[in-house]
């Protein structure tokens, strides 16, 4: 095993694409004195699903949260390197965080609907960003988002019910609906199915495949099967290093790096 833990000099595979939606270079992340991410460079292409896998504590969630600056709320977290969203640096001092998050939405591991009605949950984003002028327009956005999230048929008769009263899977799809209501360009998903049962998981996975049409998605997952099912490219993280990025099929069938192989064959993780 020890021979696997050699210093990772360079990411193997194809981390870079042409005309990327987002492109990250030489990213280091520190929590206080502890470094969590070591010199990661990767691109995310338009309308692709990029899966990030790796053992617990490998920094994949940390990296994901850097993509819409969610780590700004953590005082001791320091991020260096460049993050470009369509050629613009999102960590630029003049970059306002509010429009950034309107463009890069996030869905969390644990479903966290607001303790408000289903309608208000979805309408919240459009309301605070002033996306609509009339109530009917807002109604349209809410319905559209719930339809896209595959939740409309289940909740259309009880939009005034508490969002927190839904089942876990429905709550997570509500959170996705809430995110797509502000029509972001990129959706980040931080282990969106880890708190869900298999049926709810398969629904969310179907949804991800459909959302690919309109959105760019980066998804962190613990389940390799899930990564294999939904993603176009997969990135394997190990102890804060980005080991390998490759076409999903390629990575799971014929990994280029022995660490990746060790992980996907279940020798550790």
């Amino acid at each position: 095993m020890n021979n696997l833990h050699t210093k990772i000099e360079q990411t193997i595979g194809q981390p870079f694409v042409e005309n990327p939606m987002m492109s990250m270079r030489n990213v280091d992340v520190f929590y206080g004195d502890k470094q969590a991410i070591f010199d990661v460079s990767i691109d995310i292409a338009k309308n692709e699903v990029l899966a990030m896998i790796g053992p617990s504590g490998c920094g994949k969630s940390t990296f994901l949260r850097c993509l819409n600056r969610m780590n700004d709320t953590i005082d001791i977290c320091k991020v260096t390197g460049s993050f470009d969203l369509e050629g613009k640096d999102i960590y630029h001092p003049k970059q306002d965080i509010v429009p950034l998050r309107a463009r890069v939405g996030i869905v969390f591991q644990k479903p966290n609907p607001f303790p408000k009605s289903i309608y208000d949950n979805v309408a919240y984003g459009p309301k605070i960003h002033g996306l609509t002028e009339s109530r009917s327009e807002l109604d349209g956005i809410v319905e559209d988002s719930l339809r896209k999230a595959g939740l409309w048929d289940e909740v259309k008769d009880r939009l005034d019910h508490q969002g927190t009263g839904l089942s876990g899977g429905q709550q997570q799809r509500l959170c996705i609906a809430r995110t797509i209501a502000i029509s972001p360009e990129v959706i980040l998903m931080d282990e969106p199915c880890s708190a869900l049962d298999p049926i709810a998981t398969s629904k969310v996975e179907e949804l991800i495949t459909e959302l690919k049409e309109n959105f760019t998605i980066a998804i962190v997952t613990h389940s390799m099967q899930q990564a294999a099912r939904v993603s176009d490219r997969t990135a394997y993280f190990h102890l804060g290093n980005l080991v390998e990025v490759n076409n999903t099929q390629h990575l799971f069938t014929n990994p280029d790096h022995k660490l990746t192989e060790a992980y996907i064959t279940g020798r550790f993780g």
Partner: protein
Amino acid sequence: MNNLKVNDEGFEQREPTVSKKTTLDLVNKTLAKRYRAEKRFKLYGIVSVCFALLCLVVLFTDIVGKGHSAFFQTYIKLDVNLDQVVLGISDINDPDEIKYANYQKALRESLKLIFTDVKGRSDKRKLNALISTGASYQLADKVKENPALIGQSIVLDVLADDDVDTWLKSRSSGAEGAFTGRLTTKQLAWLTTLIDADRLEQKFNTVFFTNGDSREPELAGVRSAITGSLFTLFVTLLLSFTIGISSAIYLEEYAPKNWITDFIEVNINNLAAVPSIIFGLLGLAIFIGLFGMTRSIPLLGGIVLSLMTLPTIIISSRAAIKSVPNSIREAAYGMGASKMQVILHHVLPLALPGMLTGTIIGMAQALGETAPLLMIGMVAFVVDIPGALTDPSTALPVQIFLWADSPERAFIERTSAAIMVLLAFLITMNTLAVWLRKRLERRW
């Protein structure tokens, strides 16, 4: 653990160290002991709760037992002849004359009608002492209201003197004999006559709720104290709620975590433990001494009490804000909400029940507080009902303190009655706190 060995297939196996039987025996052996300990533990709790309940019951029975009689007051039924000559009114249309007419004399005359045989200056004075000095004002008010009564004869229930009231109440309870107090044998005989003539009666004591303080127990009421307390609380609520909640939000959501914040936090906790009289001294030195504010006004009392309740409100509000799950904040930030939107739309609504509970507990504390008010002169003898935040006034607990100090026996029951009024306010506030929390609480 040395009992791990690798078997032929390469799997690790654990060898049992103790046989099953002995483990079970050991467990069974300690089981009875564990249950006994658990029962004892539960019993301690029950005993403590019972003790607390017993204390409460004793307190309430004592206060209600002493105070309930204050809600009834003795009146003497008199046939008052509102003769123009007796009243000394020459022109019935002159309001000044009606105001200053000799109502005292009219009452005396009507007493004389009942006790025709009472002669002599001293006896007459004693007879007149049976009715309250406030009775003439009572009559005057009635006439002022309806001047047409002049010249007629009316039946009026006039307030009896507090000695009469005390005697009558102790007579009816009757355990250790009636308490005569300052009443002479002659007066007692007259009172018996009045009872026989069915002229002494007990009615609900409205005076207690409509009057301010008085030297005469039968004329003393809690209205000025209640008004003073309400004004003071209003100021306290206004100041401590706004300042308290703003500081809590800043400290929880905005303040950087450094030694200055830690220092502030430690000092807020210290302030919560400072004896209330110190805040009174502070008010005296700063607000009266330095800023030259008027003493004994609700505005000043409210400021001093809000200094006292601020730490309570800040601490409980911070706890309420802390208890809002971080996932809600993240969800809102993830949607692109600004910090203020996160706080106003999500954190505050969820923290509000806790904040309100803390505030109402702080208010209840302020309502019952006496010591700081003594230092800033709200211990005054206030007869008039305060009409503004800058009128001299007193507060309910201070009123209780003052009455508890008074020598007249009739003040004993009034003290207890005032305590009952104060407790009623406190219980109402606490019920309100529970109701608000239940109503605003959201589940998820």
